C-alpha cells in the first residue's frame, strides 16, 4: 500500500455506459464511491466490487476495478469467499433491499455475524426496481405496489435493527442524495476493520419516488433527520436547537432553551460503545430518523481470525509437506 498512484475519480469509472433511469440516486452513489476511492489509498487492482442482481447491482460494471455481478442475493457470500481467498483485497458488496434482505437475507446476517472485513452498501429504495415495482422487505405496511394492489400486509424489516441483532460492528444510515456525505461515509467504512454495513436511503424515481421525502427532502430534512457523529452532540433542527435526550429507556426529542433544557442535556454520540443498546435505540428512531455512523465498534474480523489460525498452524506444522502428509500415520511396505 506504499506506492499507490494518485488517482482521480475518473480512474475508477469503467468504459461502460451507465444504464440507470435518469434521476435515480444510484448515479449519485456511484459517483460518491468513485470520488471516495482515490482517498482510501488502495491500488485499483486491489479493489473488488461484488453485487447480486437488481438495478443497484449493475454497479460493478461501472467501476474500473475488479468486479463480479453475481446472482440474486448471493453477493455477500461470494464476497466472503473472495476475502478469505485474499484478505489483502478491499472488498465492497453492492446490494439492494431485495437482494440483501429478501433472497439474500441469510448471507447478509451471516456475513455480519462473522464480521468479514468488507464494506456492504445497501441501496435501500424500499422496492424491487429491476423487476418493476414489487414490494420489498423494507416496503411499508399498506404500501401499494405491483404485488400489493390493496396495500402491503407484510410489516417491514428495519435494516439497522436487523444488523444490530446480528451483531453488526459498524452500522451507518445515510441519504442517497448527498454526494459529499456519501463519499465521506465510504471512506470511513473502508477504514473500519470488520464489516461495515451502510444503509443508503436511495430514491427510486420510477417505482417509489419520494419514499424518503418525509425526512429527506429539502424541507423536511432539518427537522426530521439527525445526522450523528461520534463524539458530537445529537443536535439537529432548522435552528439547530433540537436534540436527543435519554429518558429512562426511551430517546426523546427536546428543544434547547425550552423547559429548561440546555445543551448539556443532549446526548453525545458514542459510536464506539461496545454495548449496542443505545445504537439499537437510535436505529429505531422514526422522527427524527437517525443518519450517520450509528455504531462502529472494533472487533477482530473473521478473516483475521481465520488467517490467524492458519498462520498458527503453518508455524506449528513447519516442514510438513504433501509427501509427509500421505506418509503420516499408519503405512506399510510390501
Amino acid at each position, binding site marked *: 500500500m506504499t506506492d499507490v498512484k494518485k488517482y482521480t475519480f475518473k480512474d475508477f469509472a*469503467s468504459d*461502460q455506459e451507465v444504464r440507470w433511469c435518469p434521476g435515480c440516486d444510484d448515479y449519485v452513489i456511484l459517483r460518491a464511491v468513485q470520488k471516495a476511492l482515490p482517498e482510501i489509498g488502495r*491500488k*485499483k*487492482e*486491489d*479493489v*473488488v*466490487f*461484488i453485487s447480486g*442482481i437488481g438495478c443497484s447491482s449493475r454497479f*460493478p*460494471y461501472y*467501476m*474500473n*476495478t*475488479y*468486479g*463480479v*455481478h*453475481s*446472482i440474486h442475493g*448471493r453477493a455477500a*457470500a*461470494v*464476497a*466472503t*469467499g*473472495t*476475502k*478469505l*481467498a*485474499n484478505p*489483502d*483485497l478491499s472488498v465492497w458488496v453492492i446490494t439492494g433491499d431485495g437482494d440483501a434482505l429478501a433472497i439474500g437475507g*441469510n*448471507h447478509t446476517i*451471516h456475513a455480519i455475524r462473522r464480521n468479514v472485513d468488507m464494506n456492504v452498501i445497501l441501496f435501500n429504495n424500499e422496492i424491487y426496481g429491476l423487476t418493476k415495482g414489487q414490494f420489498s422487505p423494507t416496503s411499508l405496511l399498506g404500501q401499494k405496489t405491483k404485488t400489493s394492489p390493496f396495500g402491503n400486509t407484510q410489516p417491514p424489516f428495519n435494516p439497522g435493527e436487523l444488523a444490530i441483532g446480528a451483531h453488526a460492528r459498524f452500522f451507518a444510515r445515510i441519504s442517497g442524495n448527498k454526494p459529499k456525505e456519501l463519499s465521506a461515509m465510504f471512506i470511513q467504512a473502508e477504514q473500519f476493520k470488520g464489516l461495515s454495513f451502510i444503509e443508503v436511503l436511495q430514491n427510486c424515481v420510477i417505482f417509489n419516488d419520494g419514499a424518503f421525502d418525509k425526512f429527506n427532502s429539502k424541507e423536511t430534512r432539518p427537522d426530521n433527520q439527525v445526522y450523528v457523529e461520534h463524539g458530537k452532540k445529537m443536535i439537529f433542527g432548522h435552528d439547530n436547537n433540537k436534540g436527543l435526550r435519554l429518558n429512562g429507556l426511551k430517546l426523546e426529542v427536546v428543544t434547547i432553551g425550552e423547559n429548561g433544557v440546555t445543551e448539556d442535556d443532549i446526548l453525545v454520540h458514542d459510536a464506539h460503545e461496545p454495548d449496542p443498546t443505545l445504537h439499537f435505540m437510535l436505529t429505531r428512531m422514526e422522527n427524527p430518523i437517525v443518519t450517520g455512523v450509528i455504531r462502529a465498534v472494533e472487533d477482530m474480523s473473521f478473516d483475521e481470525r*481465520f488467517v490467524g*489460525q*492458519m498462520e498458527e*498452524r*503453518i508455524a*506449528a*506444522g513447519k516442514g*510438513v*509437506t*504433501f*509427501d509427509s*502428509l*500421505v*506418509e503420516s*500415520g*499408519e*503405512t*506399510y*511396505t*510390501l
Partner: protein
Amino acid sequence: MSNNFSQKSSSELDSVVIRFAGDSGDGMQLTGTQFADTSALMGNDIATFPNYPSEIRAPQGSLFGVSGFQVQVASQDISTPGDDLDMLVAMNPAALKTNLPDLAPGKMLLVDTDAFTPKNLKKAGYETNPLEDGSLEPYRLIAAPMTSSTKAALLDLGMDTKSMDRSKNMFTLGMIYWIYGRSMDHTIEFFQKKFKKKPIVIEANTRALKAGNVYAENLELIATTYQVRPAQLKKGKYRIIMGNQATAWGFIAAAKKANKELFLGSYPITPASDILHELVKHPEFRVKSFQAEDEIAGVASTIGASFAGDLAITTTSGPGLALKGEAIGLAMITEMPMVIVNVQRGGPSTGMPTKTEQSDLMQAMYGRNGESPVIVVAAHSPSHCFDMAFEASKLALEHMTPVILMTDGYIANGSEPWLIKKLADLPTITTNIAKNPEGWTPYTRDKDSLAREWAYPGMEGFEHRVGGLEKNVQTGNVNMQPMNHEEMVKLRAEKVKRVENYIPDLEVEGAQEGDLLVVGWGGTYGALHTAVQSAFGVGKKVGLAHFNYINPMPKNTAEVLKKFKKIVVCELNAGQFYKILLAEHPGHNYFKYNKVQGLPFTIQELMNRFDQVIAAEKVVNV
C-alpha cells in the same frame, strides 16, 4: 475334522469376507477397520464397506440401530468387499436378525451369547431364542459369552461396567484374529497411540483382545483356522485410504502442483462431510476451509475464491447439489475454474442419506437453467477418488470451467490399500494466467482449448468485471445481441467438448470385442470389474468399458461401443447414463441393468444379468 482342541487344522483361502454387525454403540466400524488394517499390513489386498443407520445412537438393541462393516481380505487383487460372507459376527439379536439373510448355510456365525437376553430378543422381534430353537443349525455357529468373558478379564482394573463393556468388541476381534491367523501387534500399537492419555483404556482393550484370542484357541467349537496369503500387489509403500480422505488429499496435491492455494466452501451433509472434516485439519497447507451457512453460500464463496485466484472447490451430496445449481450456472457463464464434488446418496429428496446410489447424474449434467454444460467426471474406487480429485482440479484450472466430480457413499466411506504417491510423480498443472494487459480482455482465449486467460484481483492492468448476464464474445461486456448469444452458447459448449482432446481414451477390460460390452461409471467399478473378469475368465466375450469421464466422453467412445453386439449399461439408479448414451451415441444395441436399493451390486447378480443379455434375442430392457 478333529475335535481335539489343541490340534486344529489350518486351511488356506484366497479370500475371506467378514461382516461385523452390532449395535451402533458396539464399535463395529472400529473392529472391522482393525481387521482390515491388520490384514493389509500382512500384505493382503482389502476392500471395505461400512453400512450404518442414519440415527446417531439408535436405541440399544433396536433393529434399525444395527451398524455393519463388511471387509474382504484376499491374496489377490480385489475390487469389492465381496458378495458372499464367510463369517458373520452378530453382537446381538437385532444384528443377527437383520444380517442372517445374507449368510449362506454352512458359513461361520459368531455371536455374543450374553446379548441374547429376553429384552434384546424382544426388541429384535424374536419369539424364541435362536440360540436355542435350532434355527441356527444350518450355520457353523460359534457362540461365546463375550461380554461376560471380557468383564472377567478386566475385573481387577477397577472400571465400571459400562466402560468394561466397551472393550467387548476387542474380545471378539481377538477371537477372529486367532481364527484367521492375524497378528495382534498392529491393533495393540493402535491402542497405544489412540489412548495415549488413558493408560487404563490401553490396558483394558489389550487384555480383552488377548483374552479373546486365547479363548478362541481354547474353544473346542473352532475346528479350523484359516490363512490368507499376502497378495501379489505392486511393491511399494502403502496406506489404507478412505474415499473421502483420498478426495481431500487429491485437492491438496492439485493445489500444490498448480501453485495455488486451496479454498473449500462447504456445508456439512452426509456422506460428503468427511471431505470437509479432513480438509479443516490442514490449514498448514494454506487450505482455507470455510464452513458456510448453507450450500448456496458454500458454492457462492467458492466462486468468490475462484475469482480471487484460488483453486476453489465445494463439496456436497445430492440435495446440496440441487441448491447449488443456480450458482454453478454463474460459474459456468463466467468461466470460473472450480470443482464441485457430489458424493451421491440415496434419493430422491432426503431419501436414504447413509445409503449409496448413483442417481444424481442427470442432475449433474442438467440441473441448471439454460444451456449450461460443464465437465462431469466420476471416481470409481476409494483410492481413485484421489486421482479424480486431482484430475478434476487440473481440468478446471486448465480449461477454466466448473467441473463436477461424482463419487458416492460406497466409495467415499469404503477403504482400500493405496500405493502412496509422491507429489513429484503427479502430472503437472499448467494454469493459463494472463501476462500482458495490452489488448487483454477476460475473454481472451487459448486457441486450442478455448480456455480463457485467467486474471484476478491484485494483478495490475487486468481489472475487469464478470457476471451472469450474456456477454460479448470478444470483450466480455454485457451484450444482448441475438447472434452474439448464439455464438457464446456454442462457444461454451465447444470449450467443454474439446476437453475430449485432453483426456485419456476409454479402455476396455476383458474382451476387446465380441458379444457384450458392460458399461458403467463411478463407484460400481469394483463389482463390474470382478464380474466381467469372471465372465471373461470362463471364455465369455464380455468386455468392460468403465467411464471416468462423462462429459465430455472419451474420443474413442463410439469406436469402443461399435465393437460389441450388445451393450449393457449397469447403474445404481433407474438408467441415467443409459439415457445419456442413447442421446449421445445412438444406434447401438443397448440394454440396461439397474438396482436402486441403496446397496452396491453383487458380483453374482451382475453375472446373471450378463448371461441373460447375451442370451436375449432382441432388445428387452429391464
